[in-house]
């Protein structure tokens, strides 16, 4: 598409990146077909092609108003559009740039600003989130309905095996996952231990930075990233092979540290190294699948097969373009996966989206629950803590991380 960026941004790194992305869009409209918000709202402005246009206008110098901000806020950043786009338009990177410019121009009403900042800070910090969660469990009755439903009952994490293997990998503890579902990383450690890999924690590391970054506190987000890089590099130097992501949302962000810190002279090469060493758990286990599948098949031999629905998080299938790997392992572990119509559509969790855009989020959730349960599974397996807690609010059957379903069968 023809683009002529305005002077204020043309020669900045963001401007150049945005221009290269915009020019790739040939305005074919394919992406609108798989955009969850376009499918609900049917307005060009609520689909990727229209949002690209809105961003283009602002970068070309037309002042943005609340209307553009609203349509960008409604975007889930699910990146389904990227999967669909034959031309390879990197929408996710463009919308990060566009949102920042629009928010700087339009601002936010004072109260909304406070709310967003608080949400970003609490969700990004395990030390704040855990007490908040404990308080939530204790005083649940006082919380608004939407938030209360998201607080799961306290969960027990079974044993974490001692790090005795020669092969070692580092796990990201993350911000909310250890509090909400400590068993996910413990189950990961057990499964890896059985195939001869020890999973170690990096206590200095914390939130991957996605929450702050995508709420447009990009500098806060980058600070989280630098802190994690500092925590992980010594472990990689000490012989750890890989940084394992058990939440695909974090994984898609960590894999882009190199991109986010490309203009930080000191951190750029370190960030690049971290991104290269990062794998989603699906990739780690698929790479060991010879050993693992044999063990799983032995473990479930003669046992009745069970029915599960797999929900592939957007950050897994679109953000990281990983498909079929967890599904294959679940199948080997004795689960038959039921068909899930419109599996490419977002569940409406999308980081903080469920809290900021409750109406659209709830519509997407209702559709997702219907799709997931349509094949009559006993439960749902997924790969991201955000989706997990969100979907659980909409259904009775258990929603668990796929590695927990696997661990249970071994």
């Amino acid at each position: 598409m023809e683009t002529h960026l305005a002077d204020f941004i043309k020669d900045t790194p963001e401007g150049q990146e945005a221009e290269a992305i915009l020019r790739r869009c040939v305005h074919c409209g394919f992406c609108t077909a798989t955009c969850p918000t376009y499918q609900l709202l049917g307005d060009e402005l609520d689909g990727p092609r229209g949002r690209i246009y809105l961003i283009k206008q602002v970068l070309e110098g037309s002042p943005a108003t609340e209307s553009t901000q609203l349509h960008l806020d409604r975007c889930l950043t699910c990146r389904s559009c990227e999967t669909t786009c034959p031309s390879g338009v990197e929408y996710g990177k463009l919308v990060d740039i566009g949102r920042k410019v629009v928010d700087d121009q339009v601002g936010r009403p004072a109260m909304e600003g406070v709310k967003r900042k608080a949400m970003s800070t609490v969700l990004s910090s395990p030390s704040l989130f855990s007490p908040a969660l404990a308080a939530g469990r204790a005083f649940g009755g006082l919380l608004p309905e939407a938030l209360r439903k998201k607080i799961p009952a306290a969960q027990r994490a079974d044993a974490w095996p001692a790090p005795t293997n020669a092969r070692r990998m580092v796990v990201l503890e993350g911000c909310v996952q250890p509090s909400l579902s400590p068993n996910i990383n413990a189950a990961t450690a057990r499964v890896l231990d059985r195939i001869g890999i020890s999973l170690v924690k990096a206590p200095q590391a914390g939130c991957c930075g996605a929450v702050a970054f995508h709420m447009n506190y990009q500098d806060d987000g980058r600070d989280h990233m630098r802190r994690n890089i500092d925590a992980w590099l010594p472990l990689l130097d000490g012989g750890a092979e890989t940084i394992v992501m058990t939440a695909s949302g974090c994984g898609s962000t960590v894999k882009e540290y190199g991109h986010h810190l490309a203009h930080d002279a000191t951190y750029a090469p370190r960030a690049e190294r971290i991104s290269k060493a990062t794998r989603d758990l699906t990739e780690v286990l698929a790479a060991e699948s010879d050993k693992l599948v044999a063990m799983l098949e032995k473990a479930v031999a003669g046992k009745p097969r069970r029915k599960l629905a797999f929900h592939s998080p957007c950050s897994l299938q679109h953000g990281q373009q990983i498909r079929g790997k967890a599904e294959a392992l679940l199948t080997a572990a004795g689960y038959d996966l039921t068909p899930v119509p419109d599996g490419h559509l977002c569940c409406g969790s999308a980081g903080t989206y469920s809290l900021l855009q409750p109406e659209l989020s709830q519509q997407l959730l209702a559709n997702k629950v219907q799709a997931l349960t349509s094949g009559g599974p006993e439960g749902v397996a997924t790969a991201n803590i955000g989706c997990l807690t969100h979907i659980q609010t909409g259904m009775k059957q258990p929603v668990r991380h796929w590695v927990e379903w696997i661990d249970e069968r071994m």
Partner: protein
Amino acid sequence: MGKPEAISAIPAVDSHALISRLRAVLPSPSLLALPEETKPYECDGLSAFREVPLAVALPEDEAQVAAVLKVCHEMRVPVVARGAGTGLSGGALPNPLGVTLGLSKMKRILHIDPLARTARVQPGVRNLAISEAAAPLGLYYAPDPSSQIACSIGGNIAENSGGVHCLKYGLTVHNILKLRVVTIDGEILELGGEGLDAAGYDLMALMTGSEGLLGVVTEITVKLLPKPQLARVVLAAFDSLEKAGNAVANIIGAGIIPAGLEMMDKLATRAVEQFVHAGYPLDAEAILLCESDGTPEEVAAEIERMEAVMRASGATQIRLSKDEAERLRFWSGRKAAFPAVGRLMPDYYCMDGTIPKRKLAEVLKGIAQLSEEFGLGCPNVFHAGDGNLHPLIMFDANVPGQAEHAAKFGSRILKLCIEAGGTITGEHGVGVEKIGEMCDQFTPDALETFHSVKAAFDTHGLLNPGKAVPTLHRCAEYGQMHVARGKEAFPDLPRF
């Protein structure tokens, strides 16, 4: 850039009055009037043509469509219908003094009748969504434009769209039974019927392909077909375009009617392979995709014949889709070919001409020569079975003068098509893009007839004015630009 004509004939209205009247008949999220909100609607899939409408109306039901049309009719405001905005000839290009009427909120599948094998749907339903909804019943909707993932059935009606499988199963017009249409004065017409033939004029066929000039389609009953038991695709590689072209002619000549027969040249194949990873042979000068469907026995026998013809025509490699997933991947590459070219160059200009199949090799050679002459790359994709050629001229709109240069290249290609005994409209409609060429293809008498049909539905010429059918005045102007009709049918007209 070409401007829709007849704009000057329609006086500007008081836009505040218009918007407040529209506001009274639409829910608030269904009316966009801020410049910031209307600009993203300024173009369809042909983004070289752009106009910002006064307002965009996004009705949620037929009653709202009728109400919007009534307001516009009373105020004499032009209305341009818009489906998914994937059109490639500027059919949904807004009118700067008019309202763009988007059907994208009307996307419910109202009823599927598995016994009668029909589906009743709203106009904004995506083409592919119909087949997806019918799939559990073992049925599908046959016409499959390459844009089927996104384009709307209403837009398909308006363009009488074709697709990969139309060679065997026909165009849109052959696959619909009934339409509900709202006229410019807000009246509702029902055209066609559940039976195969209705008494009186076939107004449904007239409406199909009318590019939004006669009415706004609000409901469509389509035919569904039982999914063939089996479908498989032969992928054949050739070391010259000529051999591939001859293979196409030989297949048809052998009396085979493939369910689909498509060709891509090397450049196009390379661009799509980056996206679909279908395993296309990248060193071939051209590849053919040839589908057979039916019972397993029929398919086996037909595939054998297809492969024999391909081999005799000089195929260097032949692969057969091994399962349904691979078959779909083979096609998805072909279907994504236009936008995948965006990976090679920021802009492309998709030509749409039809040539006799036996002239294919010759025309392709001519295009390759022109591509050198103009210094612009030009991948080719081709609905080989029906002779519909889509050269994609690659250019960079940010480079001053290059769009015009591409347009000149385009006219030379069209000239080639005509010289080969072909036509300059394939399946993407006339819109604004080819309105000038309509003067070449039709006599003034024929054009007059089109205008009287239009006037019978739309006396004041408010529906999509300036598109599809040129006024005689315009043709006269266009004619002056020609040296002499026939001698030089395609002068180097700047068309952007």
